[in-house]
């Protein structure tokens, strides 16, 4: 690792002032499970590292039916996955959080970091995409919220500005919604997603999102439109599975071929919808 200054703000104001002062010479340090590797491999060589974990507000996770779920930026994956409200109201998000890395990694890695990294295969991306989550951030011009689908713009690119810090992820609550998260990887534990996807039923609507099949996680809007208001049967499920394949643009890489990913997208759509059909 190149030498750098370690900064530890204890308030958001202080952290933002550091962001403004040091600009692109500084990086944020949260759980560090990606950041420390980037530093060690010299993929980045900042002069300043700003550790935000000592800002108290960022370490809270809270839920109410009015406000929904609010996940502070520094809340780690195990805390999310083991939170009783997340398990009860967002079980597909809990499952996704607990599918990241190992127990050791999840005790440090954060959901906010997973999203800000904006990897196409981020495990917590698709549950948040289907749940219409918003990313909250603070900068010199104050607080703003951006839907997650607009926050991530491309591979490793987001709308976060150089003076801004993500403070929370907000997940609205909808009575009676039901989601299924699926992760396909080469091994059961401690692996990156070859493909991941979440299918959510909310009233008579269906929301579908997939990861590792395009430059960003994607919502399958045409498939959602097809399913809207429909009673599920074998024929409509097959139609949805076929349509879903036309809404993704996977590549071949070390983990799988393009064709495999296309096939598995259909499998995940089919399995998730069949389970929903059977459970009513």
């Amino acid at each position: 690792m190149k030498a750098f200054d370690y900064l530890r703000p204890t308030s958001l104001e202080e952290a933002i002032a550091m962001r403004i002062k040091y600009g692109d010479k500084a990086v944020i340090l949260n759980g560090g499970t990606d950041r420390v590797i980037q530093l060690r491999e010299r993929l980045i060589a900042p002069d300043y590292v700003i550790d935000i974990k000592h800002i108290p507000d960022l370490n809270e996770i809270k839920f109410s039916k009015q406000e929904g779920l609010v996940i502070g930026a520094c809340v780690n994956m195990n805390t999310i996955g083991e939170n009783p409200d997340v398990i009860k109201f967002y079980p597909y998000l809990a499952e996704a959080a607990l599918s990241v890395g190992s127990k050791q990694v999840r005790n440090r890695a954060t959901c906010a970091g997973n999203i800000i990294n904006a990897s196409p295969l981020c495990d917590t991306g698709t549950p948040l995409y289907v749940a219409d989550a918003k990313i909250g951030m603070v900068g010199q011009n104050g607080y703003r919220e951006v839907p997650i689908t607009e926050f991530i713009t491309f591979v490793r690119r987001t709308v976060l500005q150089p003076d801004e810090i993500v403070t929370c992820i907000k997940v609205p609550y909808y009575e009676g919604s039901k989601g299924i998260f699926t992760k396909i990887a080469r091994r059961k534990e401690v692996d990156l997603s070859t493909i991941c996807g979440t299918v959510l039923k909310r009233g008579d609507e269906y929301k579908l999102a997939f990861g590792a099949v395009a430059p960003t996680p994607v919502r399958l809007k045409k498939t959602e439109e097809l399913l809207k208001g429909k009673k599920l049967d074998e024929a409509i499920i097959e139609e949805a599975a076929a349509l879903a394949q036309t809404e993704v643009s996977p590549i071949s890489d070390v983990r799988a071929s393009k064709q495999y990913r296309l096939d598995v997208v259909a499998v995940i759509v089919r399995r998730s919808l069949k389970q929903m059909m059977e459970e009513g």
Partner: protein
Amino acid sequence: MKYPIHFFVNDEAMDLEVEANKTMLNVLRDQLCMTGTKEGCGAGECGACTVIVDGKPINACLVLAPEMDGMHITTIEGIAKDGELSPLQKAFVSHSALQCGFCTPGFVMSGTALLMENPHPTRPEIIRAISGNLCRCTGYIRIIEAIEEVANQYKGGE
């Protein structure tokens, strides 16, 4: 620049000056000469550097040295008490749950953290809890059996 940090290792208070571009693993091994914690991959894949911080297992290779300020860290050196191996360490010995031994400290730390959190884990829970630790010679069966033996001890209010 050096950063003064105050923390606990195996219940002993420490004051050190550390460099920002070092990891907790570097500090434990090179500054404190506690070489039981191993460096395998250096990227959070293998678990050889597992330590317990505030009751939770983490990878020491992914924590920057100044982040240690205020932490309560337990390393493999703190598992035996008064010269006596812990029940889990004894079980590793009696089950021959090691061969070259390089991964063993990490497995003992993951197993210890699991048993602290859940004294009677099931086999699937044990397997899941050690999934962040890689062994490249003995295999996992004996390690699982060693943890299982301790998990089955003290059952029924004994």
